[in-house]
C-alpha cells in the first residue's frame, strides 16, 4: 500500500478511536489530538526503518487504551457519586496506582493487555453484524459489515451510566434490534417515533405529532403511491403481521399510530422497499441491541450469501475480494440524523 493511503487509513481509524474518550475531553482536545496524530504520521513517512508503522500502531494503541480508561475514570470522579461509589473508586485507584509503573510495559504485557481488552470488547461492547436487505439503502447497503455498539443503549443502571456513554434512544437514531416477529433475526432501521409520538404518513411524508418532517436521509425509488405504504395507516393491507394488526387495532386513533410506552416506531430509509413498523408494528425498547458504530467491510454480494457463509461465497470472496469490496465505504460511521420540520 502506498504510504499516503496507509496514513489516511490510520488517521481515519484514529478519528473513530477518539470516540472512546469522554465527550468533554474530546470536545476540548479532539481536534488537536487528531492534528498531532497526523503530524506524527507525516513525520513517519519521512523517516526510514523497518516496522516503523507497526511500532507506531502498537504505541498508539497502548496510548489509547491506557488514556481512554484514565479519562473515563477521571470523568466519573468529576461527577458527584454516591458514597459507596466513591469508596469503590478509592479502592480501584489504589490498585491502579500500585500497578502503575513509570517504565513502559514489556512486550508481553503490552500484548496481553491488548488481547484482554480486545476479547472483552468483541464480546460485550460491540457485535459484528451484516446488513442483509436493502431497506436502509441510501444509508446502509446490502453487504455492509458493521460493528454494533452494544453499550450506548443498554441501560447499565444509575451507577454504570456515568462510566459508560449511555443514552436513551432518540428520534433519528439508527438502531439494530431483534425483529419482534422472530427474535433470532436482527434488523437495522431508523427510529421515527418514541413513546407518546403520533405518527402517520401523507403521500410518503411522515407527519409526527402534527408536524410534517423533511427527512434528508430517505430514498424514494417508486414514484407510484401505495395507499397503505405511503399514507399509513390508511387502507390497512393484508400483508401485515399479527403484531402489525395488533398495532392497527389498538394503537391507531384518528388516523394516527400512537407509540405506546416502552416501544419504538421504526422505518427503513429506503421507504418504498422496507418492511418496517408500518407492517409489523412497534419494536419493544428491550429488543434494541445497539447502535451501528462503523462499517468495517462492505462487500457486494447477494442477500442469501450474507446470511450464511457457503463454500460458494468463500470462493467468491477469495476471487473478487479486491473488486467487489466497496473500498469507499470502509470505516464509514452511520450517523443519527434529525429530521427537520418542513414548512
Amino acid at each position, binding site marked *: 500500500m502506498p504510504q499516503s493511503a496507509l496514513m489516511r487509513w490510520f488517521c481515519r481509524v484514529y478519528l473513530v478511536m477518539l470516540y472512546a*474518550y469522554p465527550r468533554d*475531553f474530546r470536545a*476540548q*482536545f479532539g*481536534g*488537536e*489530538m*487528531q*492534528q*498531532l*496524530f497526523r*503530524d*506524527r504520521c507525516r513525520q513517519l513517512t519521512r523517516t526510514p526503518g523497518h516496522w516503523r508503522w507497526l511500532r507506531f500502531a502498537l*504505541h*498508539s494503541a*497502548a*496510548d*489509547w487504551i*491506557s*488514556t*481512554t480508561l*484514565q*479519562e473515563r475514570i477521571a470523568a466519573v470522579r468529576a461527577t458527584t457519586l454516591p458514597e459507596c461509589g466513591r469508596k469503590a473508586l478509592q479502592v480501584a485507584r489504589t490498585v491502579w496506582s500500585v500497578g502503575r509503573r*513509570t517504565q513502559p510495559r514489556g512486550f508481553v504485557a503490552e500484548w496481553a493487555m491488548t488481547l484482554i481488552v480486545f476479547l472483552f470488547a468483541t464480546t460485550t461492547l460491540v457485535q459484528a453484524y451484516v446488513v442483509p436487505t436493502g431497506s436502509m439503502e441510501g444509508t446502509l447497503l446490502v453487504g455492509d459489515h458493521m460493528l454494533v455498539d452494544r453499550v450506548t443503549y443498554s441501560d447499565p443502571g444509575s451507577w454504570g451510566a456515568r462510566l459508560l456513554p449511555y443514552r436513551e434512544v432518540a428520534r433519528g437514531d439508527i438502531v439494530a434490534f431483534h425483529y419482534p416477529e422472530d427474535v433470532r433475526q436482527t434488523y437495522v432501521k431508523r427510529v421515527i417515533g418514541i413513546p407518546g409520538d403520533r405518527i402517520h404518513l401523507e403521500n410518503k411524508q411522515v407527519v409526527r405529532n402534527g408536524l410534517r418532517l423533511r427527512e434528508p436521509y430517505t430514498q424514494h425509488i417508486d414514484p407510484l403511491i401505495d395507499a397503505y405504504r405511503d399514507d399509513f395507516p390508511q387502507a390497512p393491507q393484508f400483508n401485515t403481521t399479527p403484531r402489525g394488526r395488533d398495532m392497527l387495532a389498538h394503537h391507531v386513533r384518528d388516523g394516527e399510530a400512537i407509540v405506546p410506552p416502552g416501544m419504538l416506531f421504526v422505518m427503513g430509509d429506503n421507504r418504498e422497499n422496507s418492511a418496517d413498523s408500518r407492517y409489523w408494528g412497534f419494536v419493544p425498547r428491550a429488543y434494541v441491541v445497539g447502535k451501528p458504530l462503523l462499517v468495517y467491510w462492505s462487500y457486494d454480494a447477494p442477500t442469501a450469501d450474507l446470511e450464511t457463509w457457503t463454500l460458494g461465497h468463500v470462493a467468491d470472496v477469495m476471487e473478487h475480494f479486491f473488486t467487489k469490496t466497496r473500498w469507499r465505504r470502509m470505516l464509514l460511521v452511520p450517523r443519527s440524523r434529525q429530521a427537520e420540520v418542513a414548512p
Partner: protein
Amino acid sequence: MRKPPSPQDLVPLTPPVFHILLALAGEERHGYGIMQDVARQTNDALLLGPGTLYGCLKRMLAAGMVEESDVRPDPALDDERRRYYRMTPLGRRVVRAEAQRLADAVAAAKACRLFDRPKAGVTGGD
C-alpha cells in the same frame, strides 16, 4: 476538592508531566512541538502519544501549571486547530521543585557510590 496550589503539593511529577514542563520552559509550543521536544530531551525514550499528552495537559491546565496562549507564533505553518501552551509562574516553581528533588535523589545515589563511572544521558534534559 481543589487544593490551594503549592509546588510541594504537586511533586513528585510523573515523567510525562515533568518533561512537558521542561519543553515549555524555554518557549511556548503546540502539542506536536511538545512531543518532539520531549523526544529530543529523552533520546526518543519517551514518545508521548496524543492521549497521554493531552491527558497530562488537561490536568496541568486544571492545576494551573500551564495555560493556553493566544499567541500564534508561526502563521505560515499554522492551522487553526493548533493551540499553543505556555508555562505559568506556578508551573515554573513546580518544575524547579521537581528538578531539585531529582537532583537530591541523584546526589543521594552518588553518595552510595552508585555512579562508578559518570554516565552521560541521564534523563532530565537540558
